[in-house]
């Protein structure tokens, strides 16, 4: 079974690589199969790792607790599980996503979306402010305390000054309310320089990342697949 798996994987890998020659039926077949399988997988995971443990199980526990209440076999545990009945509310709201299936009722999906979006927006404001604005501003200022204390080497002092200048100039580039003239122009010019170096660093790293993906696949084809020839033929 494992060897068949390697051969199937190798065949599909080659189907994908055939795109390098040009778009062709093998590539299209593999690509669409991939979309189908991966959507199927996401459905499975969402049901088994999402709907069942988060919604169904607590609810069914609560319902059996309710039954225990009715027939009179309550224990403190089932009493506690009764609270799970309140989960009917969010579950009902979640089910509204299915309104997407009916064009006439599609507006109902606004309810769950609004809750999720509001949740995300609310939790973002204080945390983003603290993690990204407070902490990053502080990180720019803090090395200067070490400069004052004399614990920073000359080279690191230079680095700290460069960072402070770079941050201010980069922000200036993204400043839209003033025409970039005079000193503002120079600051934004320096800012774009910093940006380009930053993007250059990302560029160089991206090359490494993309090559890593290919190296991994070539390793599979040469080691696992070609290596399986022996096992396959005897």
């Amino acid at each position, binding site marked *: 079974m494992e060897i068949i798996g390697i051969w199937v994987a190798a065949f599909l890998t080659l189907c994908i690589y055939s795109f390098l020659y040009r778009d062709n039926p093998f590539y299209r077949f593999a690509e669409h199969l991939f979309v189908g399988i991966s959507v199927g997988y996401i459905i499975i995971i969402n049901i088994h790792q999402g709907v069942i443990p988060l919604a169904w199980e607590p609810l069914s526990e609560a319902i059996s607790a309710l039954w225990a209440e009715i027939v009179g076999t309550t224990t403190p545990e089932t009493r506690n599980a009764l609270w799970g009945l309140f989960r009917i509310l969010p579950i009902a709201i979640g089910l509204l996503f299915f309104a997407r299936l009916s064009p006439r009722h599609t507006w109902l999906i606004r309810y769950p979306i609004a809750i999720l979006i509001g949740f995300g927006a609310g939790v973002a404001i204080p945390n983003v402010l603290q993690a990204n604005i407070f902490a990053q501003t502080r990180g720019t200022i803090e090395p*200067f305390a070490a400069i*004052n204390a004399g614990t920073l080497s000359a080279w690191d002092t230079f680095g700290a000054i460069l960072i402070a200048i770079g941050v201010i100039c980069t*922000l200036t580039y*993204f400043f839209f*309310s003033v025409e*970039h003239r005079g000193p503002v122009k120079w600051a934004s010019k320096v800012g774009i320089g910093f940006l380009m170096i930053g*993007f250059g660093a990302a560029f160089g790293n*991206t090359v490494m990342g993309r090559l890593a993906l290919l190296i991994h696949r070539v390793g599979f084809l040469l080691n696992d697949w070609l290596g399986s020839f022996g096992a396959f033929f005897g």
Partner: protein
Amino acid sequence: MLKYKIILWIMLCSILFLYDTYVFSQEPETTPPENVTAVDTPNDDGSSITVTWDSVRDDSVRSYKILRNTDGGEFEEIEEQLDVDTLEYKDSNIEKGKTHAYVIQAITDTDAILVSLQTEGVIATGQWFHSGKIQLFIAMIIFCGAILGSIYLCRNNQDVFVRRIPGLEAVNEAIGRATEMGRSILYVLGLGGVENVATIASMTILGQVARRTADYETPLRVPCNDPIVLNVVREMVKTSYLDEGRPDAYQEENIFYLTGDQFAYAAGVDGMMIREKPAAVFLQGTFYAESLLMAETGNSIGAIQIAGTDSEHQLPFFIAACDYTLIGEELYAASAYLSKEPMLLGSLRGQDWGKILIFVTIILGVTLELFGINWITTLLQSVR
């Protein structure tokens, strides 16, 4: 007289000396832990009490034990022995709403127990506002206020100044060149859906491009990969042609659905570029890894390429392969400027105020730090 004084002094000194030798020859008297205090832990939900005490100045003490009573009852041990370096204990295992008092026992090598005085009784309560987060709260009010205020002010005044954006100015040049050469313009909106901010910005820019092409009768080709985006774009471009008084020049089949799959879409766009050789290529919106393919082909056919995206990972490739690139926020600024939407313009202005605040903080903070004053750094300290 003097003699007496000297004798008196000598006697006094000897008594003191003798007394001292007596005192120091004795086993040192070890005192129990002092300054034991129990307070309701600040800024918590009322589930703990913090006990602190002073270190016992004695090497023979090995560990501490904590005893607690509830509502004036018996004292009971609550924790295994604490390390001798421990001087603070957070008791998270309390009974809510009841008074607790604490006693610290210091235990010596010889298992002697030194018992401290009993603390005052404390009831733990939860706080409604975390006092350590006051600066964060104020900053939040200021930032949000700046943004809402600017949106409010821009409601009636849409002539908000937006700085020159080079990529935007190149739009006219690109359209002009396409018209001169009698070739088409290709506009790619990226892979984002209609709810995507960058896609919306891109559609606004497309609306403006369409106005110009309507005037010049330059063909504008828009391959889409999302059926909903397709419908919105058709509507927008049609409106642009109508506004310019050229509804006759609008050709719906120029805005079409290509395919929904990432690389197949890129391959399709590449094919169009090679066949039709557009004079100008716009790549505006949300892009993923396919950006590279389209920018490369556009470059190889010699088209003027104007890119714009907030997808950070694709920006380096656009900058390297295109003539003009709207970087991140520039794309939003361009769309705010073109659409004259008060909400967008106001937000842009409000965020600029935020930037000024950050400038001031950094410059002030750096200057103060150089003089050894660090209250800004303390203010920005992260609080849990």
